[in-house]
């Protein structure tokens, strides 16, 4: 009986892990830029590894397996943030067009006079927002 309960919890954890991994892979293929993709890929290193290791611990339930699995989980959790940090630093230091796709737009103007004032002085560049086709063209041009 207890084996069945253990198996049920293990399958539950595996399902949670694979749902997290599916979300991460979808995000990695959906986003356009490395800094966005990195954020999606970090789900694998935290939730994916956590749930799969917990499922494997419940499956094994043996003192020759469990401490090593916990050690693997610990090392992954220590190592993956550093790796992500290095990838992010590499992107920020080496990307020449970083300011174009990290542009922050101003908030909407409150009064009409402010609106006229802003439209005269603000250079709004919709072509670099993430979803537009021009942005994709520029992305291809950089390859």
């Amino acid at each position, binding site marked *: 009986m207890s084996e069945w309960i253990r198996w049920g919890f293990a399958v539950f954890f595996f399902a949670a892990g694979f749902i997290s991994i599916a979300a991460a892979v979808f995000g990695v293929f959906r986003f356009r830029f490395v800094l966005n993709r990195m954020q999606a890929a970090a789900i694998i*290193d935290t939730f994916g590894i956590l749930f799969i290791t917990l*499922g*494997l611990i419940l499956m094994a339930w043996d003192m020759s397996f469990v401490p090593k699995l916990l050690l693997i989980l610990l090392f992954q959790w220590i190592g993956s943030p550093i790796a992500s940090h290095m*990838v992010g630093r*590499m992107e920020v230091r*080496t990307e020449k067009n970083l300011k174009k796709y990290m542009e922050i737009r101003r908030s909407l103007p409150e009064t009409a006079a402010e609106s006229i004032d802003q439209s005269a002085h603000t250079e709004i560049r919709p072509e670099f927002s993430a979803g537009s086709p021009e942005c994709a063209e520029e992305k291809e041009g950089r390859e």
Partner: protein
Amino acid sequence: MELLMHYTLVAVIGLLSVAILFGLVRAIRGPRRPDRIMGINMIGSFSTALLAALSLFLRENWLLDVCLVYGLCSFLAVVILSKIHISESRDEKDGKEESSLYE
């Protein structure tokens, strides 16, 4: 019960292999080098989980040690690759022909 555990582990290993294929696609397609290195990072995490599942599948204790060392090696690989990329691009900015790493 043993058979059920067996098939569950087969399913886990199969799904992780599919996930590794997705990581490989990202590493090949990724337009720039940071995308590729991120794909390599993904493949390393999936492989660690897959090795752990394989050690339970075969009931071999030592495969977990391999898995531990593999995880650390893939982490080191990502860190060193990004260091190399940073230093190469810095040399390009300075106008050097060859990277100082290869001298």
